[in-house]
Structures are given as C-alpha cells and as structure tokens.
C-alpha cells in the first residue's frame, strides 16, 4: 500500500490537472491516519490533539476515527508526555507526539535531546526510539517573541534526531509517512504559514496536489523546487514559498534563480547544495531561524569546506539575532520577507 515517488527530488511539486488538492495540515493528518490504520502501534499524543484536532490542525479527525485510546489529550506537562512517548517507543510503540509550539522546547528539552536522541547510541544500537516529535514553528502574525520562533537550527545541532521541515502538502505527507515508519526519532517541524490554515494569511502553495495512497518522501533528500542558472537560493519551509515567488518575479527580468528546498536538515543534503552552486557560483541562504550559529552558517560552510573556490558570492537572509518583535512593522523588518530575498538576489547577480 505504499509507494515512494523518487522523482519529486528534482521536480517542483505542482498539482497535475484533475488531481486532488489538500492543505498541508490535511496532508499531515492524512499521513498519520494512514499509518495508524496500517500499524496499531502508532498513536498520537499531545495538548489539544483530540477534540480540538491540534491547534494547527495537524491531528484533525483522528480522535473521531481512532478514539481516545490512540489519540490522547495530555496535561500541559511536556516533559512527562514526551518522556512517556520515549518509554513507549522503547517498548515498540510508535508515538507521534505534538509539542504545540516549538518555542516550548525549553520546558522539555532534556527528554528530547538527552533521551529521545541519545538512547539509541548509548545503548550501542540495542534500543530503538521510533518516535515522531512534531511542532509548529514560525512567525509573521504578531505572536511575539515566545510563539514565533523557528528554532530548527537548535534541533539540527544536537545529534541523534533526524529533523525534517516540509514546505508543502506533498512533502508534508510523504515526510510524515517516512518519519512514522522510521526507526529513528524524527523531529517534524511545520511552519504555521505552510499549513494552509483558514485563519492565517497563506501562500497558494500551502494547498496542493497530494496522492491518496501512502508514500514516503525520503528523509535527507533536498528538492530542486525550481531550476535556475544565475543564483542558488538554499532555503526551507515557508521561505521556500517566498523564494519561489521572488524567482518567478525575477525570471521576468531574465534573472534565473534556482531554489533548493532542503526539506530535511538532518541528514542535510550537502550534495544537492554543492551541485547547485557549482552551476551558479552564487549562494543566497534564506532561513527564518536566527542567523548566527544556525542553518545559514552550516549551509555555507558545507560548500566552502568542500570547494573553497566555488562561490563568488554568498549572503544570508535570516532573522538577525533578535527576539521576534510583536509589532508588525518590526517583525516584518526582521523576517526573511520576499523583499529582503529579492534584494539579496539582485545584489548577488550585480556582482
């Protein structure tokens, strides 16, 4: 009942005419539902994942279909219930645990990075922790400094967990399917702005064609979201949408932008990045996480440590090491907006 569609690694995810379209949120919950149907060891746990269906609709409908024994609302005790997930996974269950906002990792990080991520290694491979930890990320709707962060760089820095970051419905379903089936702990971070929620401004790409059947998008494989020859944008999550918008706009002026959607941070598809910049020589890394000591630095270093001379231009468009401000005017001054991305691309090609 499962297919792996490999060719999406290098092709844009475009709805084919007549194919079913889903929001990213629906794609996520469909992936979970299908895995729950196929494997009774899969269960879902978190705050408001039951009758509410998840604050960002990642678990909508699951309670009705699978009942309260497999879709469990928890107290606001992230350490306890993530740890419960770990213990359950160790015993062979396959929990999908939601941490409502990634910003809350600070109350439960020990379970995540010292336990979920390390048990397999510490046990010399004798104990597996097949668990998915999913969380909402990102800003852009004035939710303030404690509810708008991306933070994927923090998770990617700490070894032992895979980290995936889908940007669209197709990848969201395929990565969730792969994550649940994986024997490794996977951190699954979805940006609220790619979920296609009715109550939030959304990019049209947050609703797209999604196959009905279960399929996997391979963890650790980037996708060439758009081919181009002048500049490479390496990016992820909502910033993929912005980058594609910018690429489309600049194409009219004859500027050819290649957009790489990383999709996974761990493992990081360093080959795909290098391949693209070999062609363009110019790299713009776009990231909604904080700029320093994070994704942007890693992407750049990955290139130059392998081929120091390959880049003639490199720049970053990220959140400049400031807490996310509340006021819209301030928040949009620090987010990687299309305007900032466009300026960076123009600067890159000007050289």
């Amino acid at each position: 009942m499962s297919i792996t569609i490999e060719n999406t690694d290098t092709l844009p995810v475009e709805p084919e005419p007549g194919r079913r379209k889903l929001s990213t949120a629906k794609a996520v919950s469909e992936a979970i539902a299908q895995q729950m149907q196929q494997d009774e060891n899969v269960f879902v746990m978190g705050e408001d994942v039951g009758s509410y269906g998840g604050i960002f609709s990642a678990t909508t409908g699951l309670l009705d279909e699978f009942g309260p024994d497999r879709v469990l609302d928890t107290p606001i005790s992230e350490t306890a219930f993530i740890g419960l997930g770990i213990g359950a996974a160790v015993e062979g269950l396959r929990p999908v645990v939601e941490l409502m906002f990634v910003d809350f990792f600070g109350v439960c990080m020990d379970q995540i990075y010292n336990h979920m991520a390390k048990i397999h290694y510490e046990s010399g491979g004798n104990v597996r922790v097949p668990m998915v930890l999913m969380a909402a990320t990102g800003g852009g709707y004035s939710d303030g400094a404690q509810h708008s962060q991306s933070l994927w760089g923090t998770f990617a820095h700490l070894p032992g967990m895979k980290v995936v970051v889908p940007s669209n419905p197709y990848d969201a379903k395929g990565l969730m399917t792969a994550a649940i089936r994986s024997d490794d702990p996977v951190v699954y971070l979805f940006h609220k702005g790619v979920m296609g929620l009715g109550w939030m401004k959304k990019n049209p790409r947050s609703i797209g064609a999604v196959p009905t059947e279960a399929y996997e998008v391979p963890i650790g494989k980037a996708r060439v979201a758009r081919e181009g020859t002048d500049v490479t944008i390496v990016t992820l999550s909502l910033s993929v949408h912005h980058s594609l918008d910018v690429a489309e706009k600049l194409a009219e002026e004859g500027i050819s932008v290649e957009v790489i959607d990383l999709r996974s941070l761990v493992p990081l598809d360093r080959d795909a990045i290098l391949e693209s910049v070999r062609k363009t020589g110019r790299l713009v890394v776009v990231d909604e996480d904080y700029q320093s000591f994070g994704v942007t630095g890693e992407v750049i270093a990955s290139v130059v440590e392998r081929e120091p001379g390959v880049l003639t231009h490199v720049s970053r468009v990220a959140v400049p090491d400031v807490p996310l401000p509340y006021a819209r005017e301030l928040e949009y001054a620090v987010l990687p907006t299309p305007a900032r991305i466009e300026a960076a691309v123009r600067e890159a090609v000007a050289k």
Partner: protein
Amino acid sequence: MADTSGLTAQSRRDLLSMMILIRTYEEAILREYHADKSPGFDIGAGLVPGEMHLSAGQEPVAAGIGAHLREGDALTATHRPHHVAIAHGVDLRRMTAEIFGREDGLGRGRGGHMHLFDPDRHFSCSGIIAEGLPPALGQAFALRRAGTDGVAVAVTGEGAANQGAFHESLNLAALWKLPVVFVVEDNDWGISVPRSASTSVPSNAARAAAYGIPGVRVEDNAVEAVHAAVGAAVARARAGEGPSLIEVHTLRLWGHFEGDAQGYRPDLEGAPGRDPIPTYVAALVADGVLTEADVALIRTGAAERVEDAIAFAKASPVPSPDDALKYVFTEGIPA
C-alpha cells in the same frame, strides 16, 4: 450574597468597580481585535494582531488580589494577563499601546499582549505555561532582601499547575519562606482540555500539603471570598511566614483565544448565568451598598478610562522598522 464579608461598603464598591473596569477593557479589546480581521478571520491582520487571550469572567480573581497589593509589591501573570495587570495598577494607556504595538507601549511594541512589563508596578507576564512563577520568587527574594515587607503574587491557570515549574516554585518558595502568594485560576479548561483530563486531584489546594504551606480553594468565583483568601495569604507573606497557595474556581466566559469556536465545550450554555459581575451587582444593590444608578456611573467612568487608553494607543506612533534591532542588549540605552 448576604454581607458576611466584613468588608466596608467602600471596599465592596472598589471590588465591583475594578471588575467592571476589567470587563469594560476586555470588551473594548474584543471589539478592536475583531474590528479589522474580516472578511474571513485572519489572525495576523488589523490594528491588534496575534493571539488574544481575554479574561472575561475571571475578574473576581484579579479584583480580589489587587485590593491587597501596594506600591512595591510584585505580580507575575500568564498569557491571559489583562485583568490582573489592571487590578495591579499597570498604566492602562501604556498597556493598551503595547497591545496595539506602538512606541508608547510598555515594551515599545516589542512585547505584545503576552509580554507586558511594567517595572514601576513590578509587573510582568509570560506566554509560557507556569514559567511566570519562578521570577516571582526572585522578586520576593529581592523585596525581602531590601528589608521591605513587600510580597510577590504569582498567578497561573489550573492547566499550568501540572507543569514542572509549578512544583519547583512552590517547593523553593516554601523552603526559603519567600513572601509569595500563588494563585491558581481554575477556569475548568486549558484550551480544550478539561480539568478532569489534566489534573489528578479535584483541588489544587490539596497540593499545598506537598510543600507544607497553607492551601485553600475558593469556590463559586466569589470576589469577596477571593479577597479574604488573598488577604490572609498576603498578610502571612508580609509577616515573614512564607508562601501560600490559593485556587479560585473561576469562569472563562469566552474562548481560550479569540477565534476559538469552543466546539469542545459543553458547559457554555449555562455560562452567562454564572457571570460574576451581574451577580455581584445584584448582591451589592440588595445590600444597599449602591444603586443601579451608581453602577451605571461606574460603568461610564470605566468606559471613559478605557476609551481614553485606546485612543492613546491609536495615536501613538508605530515603531520604526529601522529600530527593530534596538534593545537586544543594553549598549547605548540609558539605564
């Protein structure tokens, strides 16, 4: 409600006035919040964007606390902070300007509705569940160290009482006999999760025994009972006898946040009848403490203050994008 409170008529009027001021404020924010988010609710749109957690129905908690606090006392609140902020005397204009994201706001628009900081009132709040408690301990520690009899009140929800920070804070406060009053607002819900699905005991007052401190539960959202319980706890704290825990069974009249359809909520039907304000108005009128006309006057006064604050906020300048990086560190910022 017979007058068994031992409160003066003035105190009772003050409690009611505070409750009305808070409700008036929340109604105004509700109005402003939804004014420009349609067609189709867009959380990020309008003059007041972002999540909005309003406190209608929980006024008795705030009024009951506020009556006991004085200059120099500290208070930490949650993601649902307006009622306690107002009762603690946070500047209404600057608080409103902050909610509107303006330069004259408490945080110059950087913080927003979940991040209100008023150093003059030693007031702060946090958007992270139960994480406002530990800083209250530090304020209490500093107050005691300064030789004052000041207290710190830490307010939190019943959902939050299952978070690790709750336990650690109560233990440490009890151990060091810090002048802290912990107040749990039990509004039956943590977003969509009912208390029965989050809390293993019927009353958080029972948890006081785990720290050897007094614990009481106030039923029925009764402002005078809150007033009495907080009064005793504050007196105890001022006297150097350490912390107390109070749980108040209150009522979330509206959604968890604005936009919450509350489909999960079977108890909504009877909710309006449990609104604490009409109840208290009726009691005070029955007791001859004030007349309906007095109440109308109070409402008018509240509306004036609230609309003044909103006008102030709207007139305040929007922060300049050029200043987005200001205030990360103190350099260049006069102390």
